């Protein structure tokens, strides 16, 4: 086939391309993912009964704020990566800021605690299920993000997948924070972060498989 023929076929009957369609699609997808994740939380885990009492504590806001910061920063990167030729305006190190803050806080708490009581801070009572629960609650967000990204054009599919997974893991963690009884900073610094890394690795693979165009 001649290239001119192809051009004629492509341009014949050209339709207007809707504006901001990509922005709307990816935002709606993530919103839908978070809503599904929240419904799963209500159905399976339930919200912790003392939410009102702890909602004034620093620990609770750190636990919610760090993953939410990850979600916002992750979104900025995923959005840029999904558009060809658009470089993220921030350096990739910005992704690490919430985690550095969390670890700083955890180390401070670790040092301020009597050595005999430290292990309790790290292991808590629910470390066995933490990673699994966060990954489970990340699944809806990961799935909707993947669907939205398949309609866009990431030129680095693996990296885009990984950061979308990081975003999904963080969204899962912030939803899970409404149920999870753990409040110790070292627990959050280890298990919550691992719970974000697992979806990130899964989505890097999904990016490799499903985000090529």
């Amino acid at each position, binding site marked *: 086939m*001649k290239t001119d*023929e192809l051009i004629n076929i*492509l341009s014949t009957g050209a339709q207007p391309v809707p504006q901001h369609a990509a922005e709307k699609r990816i935002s709606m997808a993530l919103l839908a993912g978070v809503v599904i994740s929240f419904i799963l939380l209500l159905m399976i885990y339930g919200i912790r009964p003392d939410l009102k009492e702890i909602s004034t504590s620093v620990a609770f806001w750190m636990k919610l704020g760090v993953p939410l910061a990850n979600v916002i920063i992750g979104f900025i990167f995923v959005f840029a990566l999904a558009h060809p030729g658009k470089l993220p305006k921030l350096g990739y190190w910005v992704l690490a800021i919430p985690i550095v803050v969390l670890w700083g806080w955890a180390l401070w708490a670790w040092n301020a605690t009597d050595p005999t009581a430290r292990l309790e801070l790290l292991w808590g009572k629910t470390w066995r299920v933490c990673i699994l629960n966060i990954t489970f609650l990340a699944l809806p967000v990961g799935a909707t993000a993947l669907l939205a990204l398949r309609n866009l054009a990431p030129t680095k599919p693996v990296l885009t997948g990984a950061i979308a997974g990081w975003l999904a893991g963080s969204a899962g963690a912030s939803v899970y924070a409404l149920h999870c009884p753990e409040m110790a900073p070292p627990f959050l610094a280890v298990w919550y972060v691992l719970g974000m890394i697992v979806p990130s690795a899964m989505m890097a693979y999904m990016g490799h498989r499903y985000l090529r165009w």
Partner: protein
Amino acid sequence: MMEQELRNLMLRALDGNAESYQCFLQRVSSVLRAYLRRRLTSAPDEVEDLLQETLLAIHTQLHTYRRNEPLTPWLYAVARYKMIDYLRRRSRHEARHDPFEDDAEWLAVSGEATNESKRDLETMLDALPAHQRLPIQHTKLEGRSVAEAAAMTGMSVSAIKVGVHRGMKALAKMWKEQA
């Protein structure tokens, strides 16, 4: 200068102006042909295939260009992605097949530039389901309006539009897999 000119054409194309879009694709194809030729010196006969694949990608990804941003970075990013994807496929293909045979094949078809690829869109079109094939045939090949195509097929106007869009994406995918 190229940026300004291409961007003006692109913005009109995004508003649905077919003439500007055709002109845009023609300019882009000569720019990208030169770009790909410089980089694929080992396989000059593949340039036109890859160029057409890139044009198809530009077409199916038009919505990922944001109107307030410069156009050339977007264009080159799409072209570069398609080229890297092609090289990746080719090296995988060569690992499985005898590379000498491929060389002989390239030598055999090597000739003057005809701006023609080895693909045939119409045979690929036959592989599409009717609800994508018919909208493309009526609107893209025979140049009918969406409303006419809807009346002829008994499909709704939006089903025609969706069929064209999804069908073009499916063709772009087939195009890749044929390589």
